[in-house]
């Protein structure tokens, strides 16, 4: 009786969303794994006696659990766990920073296109369509080949190839929200267009934006691993999850652990962000729930 009565009580939207999210076990697991990866990358290196770039030729190719090196050492005798943690800093940071840039561009383009519509909207959205015609990896590699590789370039280029999906989401939202009463009211009050766009319309589209942002981090981490694996992203001696796999193929027969650890880390991080995005989608907007 008590529970039946409780369930009819109207919950605050935030509370209801939190309940729906909690039900999504995989999203919760994803959030926990992300937290562990972030904390491990942030503080782990301080707990290890090894430096991620310290080369020890005498201890090359030590297999995992064969002494002090928990995950073994690589072809230059560097500690794999230390590199994994430092690489995590790079890969996760790129994932998040690239997401922020991509969101900023995507939201701006989407908001302008959705709000003004007409020629402005059509031109902006056709631009989005046109960039989407290029397979992401081809575009990313072509741009990376024209620039000096590094942390900043890699981040910016990943953002440059990942903003279009966000723009599409925001454009559709803003276009439909623009006609709603609160937007019309704001216009009648004499609010400026910019104010209506970014103070009224975009905040009301926050649910799909948050979902898109989460999925965008997953995509950015994946893209970093691709460009760095192919040699056009983060350059050694700095470690990233992608470039740790760069040489792994050569030593696949003799030292398979070099390929396993970073690959698992990438898969774990990307899967977690994808599940988190899925859970957020279910939690924030039940209507968006894809069966």
């Amino acid at each position, binding site marked *: 009786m008590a529970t039946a009565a409780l369930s009819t009580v109207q919950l605050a939207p935030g509370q209801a969303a939190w309940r729906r999210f909690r039900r999504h076990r*995989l999203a919760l697991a994803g959030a926990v794994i992300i937290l562990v990866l972030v904390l491990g990358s942030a503080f782990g290196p301080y707990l290890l006696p090894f430096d991620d770039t310290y080369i020890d030729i005498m201890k090359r190719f030590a297999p995992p659990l064969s002494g002090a090196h928990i995950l073994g050492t690589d072809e230059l005798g560097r500690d794999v766990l230390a590199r994994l943690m430092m690489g995590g800093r790079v890969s996760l940071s790129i994932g998040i920073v690239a997401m922020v840039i991509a969101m900023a561009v995507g939201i701006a383009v989407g908001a302008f296109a959705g709000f003004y519509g007409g020629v402005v909207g059509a031109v902006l959205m*056709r*631009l989005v*369509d*046109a*960039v*989407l*015609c*290029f*397979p*992401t*990896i*081809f*575009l990313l*590699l*072509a*741009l990376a*080949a*024209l620039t000096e590789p590094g942390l900043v370039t890699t981040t910016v280029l990943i953002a440059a190839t990942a903003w279009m999906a966000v723009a599409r989401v925001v454009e559709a939202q803003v276009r439909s929200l623009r006609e709603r009463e609160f937007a019309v009211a704001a216009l009648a009050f004499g609010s400026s267009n910019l104010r209506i766009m970014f103070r009224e319309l975009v905040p009301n589209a926050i649910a799909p934006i948050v979902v898109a942002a989460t999925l965008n981090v*997953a995509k950015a981490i*994946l893209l970093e*691993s*691709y460009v760095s*694996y*192919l040699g*056009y992203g983060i350059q050694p001696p700095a470690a990233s999850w*992608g470039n740790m*796999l760069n040489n*792994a*193929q050569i030593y*696949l*027969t003799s030292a*398979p652990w070099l*390929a396993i650890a970073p*690959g698992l880390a*990438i*898969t774990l991080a*990307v*899967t977690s962000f*994808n*599940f988190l995005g*899925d859970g957020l989608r279910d939690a924030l907007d039940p209507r968006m729930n*894809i*069966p």
Partner: protein
Amino acid sequence: MARYVVNRLAQAIMLLVIVSGIGFAILHMAPGGPLSQFAASAQMTQEDLDRVTKQLGLDRPLPIQYLDWFGRMLKGDWGRSYRDGEAVLSVISSHLGATLELMATATIIAVLLGCWIGILGALRRYSLFDMLATVGGMIALSIPTFWFGLVTIYVFSVKLGWLPAGNRQTVGDGSFLDLLHHLIAPAMVLALVETAMWGRFMRSSMLEVINQDYIRTARAKGMPEWRILTVHALRNALLPMITVAGLQFPTLLGGALVAETVFTWPGMGRLFLDSIGYRDYPVVMGILMFSATMVLIGSLLADIFYAVVDPRIRVG
């Protein structure tokens, strides 16, 4: 119908113009612009460079250069490779077959497997199979393709010794069985992500259809379940998959690049990466434009084909 096709064609042409504009902009972003090859050579003096600039018309205003470049692209003159001076289009076409072979095989695997998983998942919603397929699909979408390739090589080539670790054929062999033997691993790797995508879309499309009124009507009039599923549900659930095929094309091309790199498959993706390594900008640009055009044509064909099989679309 004709109006829809013309409309869609006009859109595609407009997109092609924008796509070429982006390509042209990237070309001019290259260090030294279109002259990078000559600029890098120590034998070229500044005077020589100026002369070549004039000869190639690179001193003209950018819009005119663009029109000239676009016109030549349309005529099939895509420039020459820096590496061996061969025409870019013929370099690309000599590598295209291997890529198409890989992509087609992976697509066949992905469509059959993905649709089967998706349909079964939808019919037995929230069953153990459905749960495993959904979670597995999400993991498959998250695994870096190249890493899955490395794992495949490690397991099937290094440990088990069943499959070759790369290349399209054994030197001096090249029989059908030999080709097939080399194709299995890269096609499987490329098919992983595709299968997950097809499974996801197929599941939601099927779920949408089986909750429609006409399915209930069919049940009400006592039609056997297998007939409802195959004749009524499946036929309609498969329609949106045409769009999925079009949407999936860029991902498929990108995946092919990665799979070709891991398995040293002599296709367009590997050519692209080699060309980047050699700073062979004409070929890089050529492949970039070629793949974008393929994507454009792919989505155009998907849209038109969809309109042919589903009359509701033509109106909208």
